[in-house]
C-alpha cells in the first residue's frame, strides 16, 4: 500500500503543468470555468495544441501515434487539465472509435482513419442510440441492407453529441433480423457528406444544442466501411462501452467544479458573511468534498487494477454511478450558491462573440444551465439504472 506517486509520475505531472501554463489560453480556460459554449474552433485548436506535443491520444499505443500512457499517467493528465479548466478532449474519435479500430479494424482502416483523427481532419460522432433504443442498445432498428458493394442504410440515430461539427459517424446498424437481437448488429463507418444524411439539432432544457438527431435515408455506404465482421458489431460496441473508461468517475471535473463553487461561495454574501462560512452551506460542501476524496481513491484503486491487467468489472459501473452523483451534487451546490442570480436565462451570453455585460456576477450566468445540462450524466453512456443492474447482477450472481 502506497498512496504516493513515483518520482517519474511526479515529473510527468510537472511536465503537464508546464505545458498547460505555456499552451492553455487563459481566455479559453475562463470560458470553460464559466460554462460558456465552446466553438468548433476552440476544440480544434486545443486538440492541435495537444497533438503537436504528442499528447492528444493518451490512451493509444505509440505505434498508432498515441502517447502510450499508463492509466496513472492518463489520470494525472486528466486531473491537471481539468483543474486548469482546459477544454475536454472530444472523445468520439479519440477515446471511442480509435480503440475499436485498433482492436477490430483492418490495417487499412487503421492506416487511413487514425491519422485523420489525430490531425483533426475528421471529426467523428457516435450513432448508437435510437428513439426506441436508449439504454437498450440491442433494440437498434436502423437497417443496413447489402446491395452489391454497398450497404443501404435507413433509420434514425439520436442523442448524437456534437454531431453538428462531425463529418463522420460510426453507427450500430441492423444487418440481420433473423437472429437474436444482439447477433444481427454491425458496426459501420459513414461519411456524413453522403446523400441522405441529415443532422437536426435537439435543443435541451438548458437552452444548449449540443446533441442531435441524425436521419439516414437510403444512405449508400461502401462495404469497406464495415468494421470487423458483419453481424458481430455487438461485441465491438460492448468493447467500446466497457473499455476506455479511465475517466468515467470524472474526478478531475468534480475537483475543478468543487474548486469553482468554493470560489463562488467565498464571493457570495449571506447574512452579512461569506456564504462559505454559513454552517449549512459549509456542511453540504464538506459532505461532497469528503465523498469526492474517497472516490478519487476508489478511482485510483480501479486504475491500479487496470494497470495490472485486471478487467474493471462492476467497479467501473460503481465509479459511473457515484461519479455522476457527485458531479450533479456540485452543480446543485453551484446553483444554490449564486442565489437569485440563478434565475436569469441568457443562453446567448454563453455563445462566442457575445459582447454584453453578464446579468449579475459572471460565474452566475451558467449555474442553472449547468445544473440542468448535467442531468445527462446519469442518463447517457449507460444510465445509472443500467449500471446498478450490472453491479448487482455481478455481485448477486443471479
Amino acid at each position, binding site marked *: 500500500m502506497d498512496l504516493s506517486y513515483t518520482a517519474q509520475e511526479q515529473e510527468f505531472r510537472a511536465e503537464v503543468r508546464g505545458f498547460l501554463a505555456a499552451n492553455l489560453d487563459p481566455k479559453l480556460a475562463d470560458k470553460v470555468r464559466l460554462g460558456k459554449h465552446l466553438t468548433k474552433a476552440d476544440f480544434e485548436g486545443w486538440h492541435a495544441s495537444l497533438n503537436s506535443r504528442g499528447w492528444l491520444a493518451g490512451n493509444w499505443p505509440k505505434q498508432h501515434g498515441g502517447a502510450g500512457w499508463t492509466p496513472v499517467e492518463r489520470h494525472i493528465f486528466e486531473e491537471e487539465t481539468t483543474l486548469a479548466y482546459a477544454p475536454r478532449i472530444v472523445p468520439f474519435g479519440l477515446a471511442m472509435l480509435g480503440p475499436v479500430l485498433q482492436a477490430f479494424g483492418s490495417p487499412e482502416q487503421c492506416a487511413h482513419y487514425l491519422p485523420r483523427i489525430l490531425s483533426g481532419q475528421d471529426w467523428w460522432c457516435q450513432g448508437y*442510440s435510437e428513439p426506441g433504443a436508449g439504454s437498450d442498445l440491442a433494440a437498434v432498428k436502423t437497417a443496413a441492407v447489402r446491395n452489391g458493394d454497398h450497404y443501404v442504410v435507413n433509420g434514425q440515430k439520436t442523442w448524437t453529441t456534437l454531431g453538428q461539427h462531425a463529418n463522420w459517424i460510426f453507427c450500430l446498424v441492423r444487418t440481420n433480423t433473423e437472429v437474436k437481437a444482439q447477433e444481427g448488429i454491425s458496426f459501420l463507418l459513414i461519411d456524413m457528406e453522403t446523400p441522405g444524411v441529415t443532422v437536426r439539432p435537439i435543443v435541451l432544457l438548458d437552452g444548449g444544442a449540443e446533441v442531435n438527431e441524425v436521419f439516414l435515408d437510403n444512405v449508400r455506404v461502401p462495404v469497406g466501411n464495415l468494421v470487423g465482421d458483419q453481424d458481430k458489431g455487438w461485441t465491438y460496441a460492448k468493447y467500446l462501452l466497457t473499455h476506455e473508461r479511465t475517466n468515467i468517475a470524472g474526478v478531475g471535473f468534480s475537483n475543478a467544479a468543487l474548486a469553482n463553487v468554493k470560489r463562488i461561495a467565498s464571493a457570495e454574501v449571506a*447574512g452579512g458573511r461569506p456564504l462559505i462560512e454559513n454552517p449549512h452551506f459549509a456542511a453540504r460542501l464538506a459532505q461532497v468534498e469528503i465523498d469526492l476524496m474517497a472516490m478519487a481513491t476508489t478511482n485510483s484503486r480501479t486504475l491500479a487494477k487496470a494497470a495490472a491487467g485486471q478487467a474493471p468489472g462492476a467497479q467501473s459501473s460503481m465509479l459511473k454511478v457515484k461519479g455522476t452523483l457527485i458531479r450533479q451534487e456540485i452543480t446543485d451546490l453551484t446553483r444554490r450558491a449564486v442565489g437569485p*442570480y440563478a*434565475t*436569469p*436565462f441568457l443562453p446567448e451570453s454563453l455563445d462566442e462573440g457575445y459582447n454584453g455585460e453578464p446579468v449579475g456576477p459572471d460565474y452566475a450566468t451558467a449555474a442553472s444551465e449547468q445544473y440542468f445540462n448535467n*442531468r445527462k450524466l446519469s*442518463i447517457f453512456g449507460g444510465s*445509472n*439504472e443500467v449500471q446498478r443492474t450490472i453491479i448487482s447482477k455481478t455481485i448477486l450472481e443471479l
Partner: protein
Amino acid sequence: MDFNLTEERQMLQDTLRRFLADAANKDSNTLWTELAELGVIGALFTEDYGGFGGAGFDLSVVFEEIGRAGVATPLLETGILAGGLIAALGNDDQTALLESIVDGTQQLAFAHGEPLTRYDLNHVATTATQTGDGYILNGHKCVVMNGGRADTLIISARTAGDVASNDGISLFLVDASSVERRSYQTMSGADAAEVYLNNVTVAKTALLGAEGASFYEIETQVARATAALCAEAVGAMESAKDLTIEYMQTRQQFGRPIGKFQALQHRMADLLIEVEQARSATINVCGHLDADRPLRERHVSAAKNLIGRVGRQVAEETIQLHGGIGMTQEYNLAGFTKRMMMIDHQWGDTDYHLERFIALSRAVG
C-alpha cells in the same frame, strides 16, 4: 378539519383548469387579459378591494392551476406582492390603483432584492433621501420578477437605519418608465429585470405606507407570495408526475413498459409520497396566513424548505425516469422541472428557510 374546497373555489379551479388547458399557445398579453376577464386576479383580493377571495386557499387554488399548466404570468408580482402591499398600506389615491390591477389593465412588480440581499428581507441598501418635496432614490434592484413588463414598480428603499435593520424600510410607487431597466427572460420563461436607480426623483405622494415602517408588511405579503409559490410548485409537480406515469406506462425498454421495472416503481412510490408531503406543507402554510406572525412564518419556512427539497427530487427523478427525452426543450416536462427549480430561488431557497425555521422555532420556544 375540512380538506374539501368550498363550492366557489371548486368552480374557480374547474374554470381555470379548463381555460389553461389550451393556454400554451396564447401570447402573454392575451393570456393576461383573459385571466383578468375570468376573474382570476380578483380571486387574489378581498371584496373590500374589488375581489372575491384573497384568503390562503384562494391563492393556492389559483397558483396550483398556474403551476399545473406551466404558464408564466405576472399574477404573483402584480396580484399578490404589489397588489397586497397596496391593499394593506395604500391611501385612497393609491388603492384606487387596485381596480386597474383586478381588471388586468396594469401590471406591477415589486423591486426589493439587491445583489447582497440574497434572501434576507431586511437587507436593503437602496436609499431614499428626503428632499423638499419628495425623495431621491439610489440603488440597484436585482432579478425583479416582471420588472421589464411592469407599468408601475413598488420600490423598497431605506430612509433610516442600518443596512440590515427591520426599521427604516420605506416603499415607493414609481412609474416604471422613469427608471433604468435591463429586462431579460428567466429560466422558466417569465420576465425579469435589473432596475438601476440613479438619482431617481419621486414625489412625496409616491410613499406607500408610513415612512420607514414597511418591513413587517413586506414580510406579510412575501408570506402570501411564498404560499402561492408553494402551490404553484405543487401544480408543477402534479404535471411532472402525470407525464412520468404516462411515460412509464407506454415507453418500452428491454421488451416491456419501463413501469414494470420494480426499481423504477419504488422510486416512483417515494416520489408520490413526497408530492403528498408537498401538498400538505402547502395546505399548512395557506391555512396559517392569518395566524400570528411567529406561527405563520414558521409555516412559511417549513413549507418553502420542504417544497425546495421535494421540488428538486421531483425534477431530478422525473427527468431521470424519462431518460434523454426528459432533457429536451420541446417535451413538456422541461417547463415543469425548470419552474420547480426556479421557485427555489424566489424568496428564499430550501437552505435559507431551514435556518430561518430554526431561528423562528427558537424564538417561539
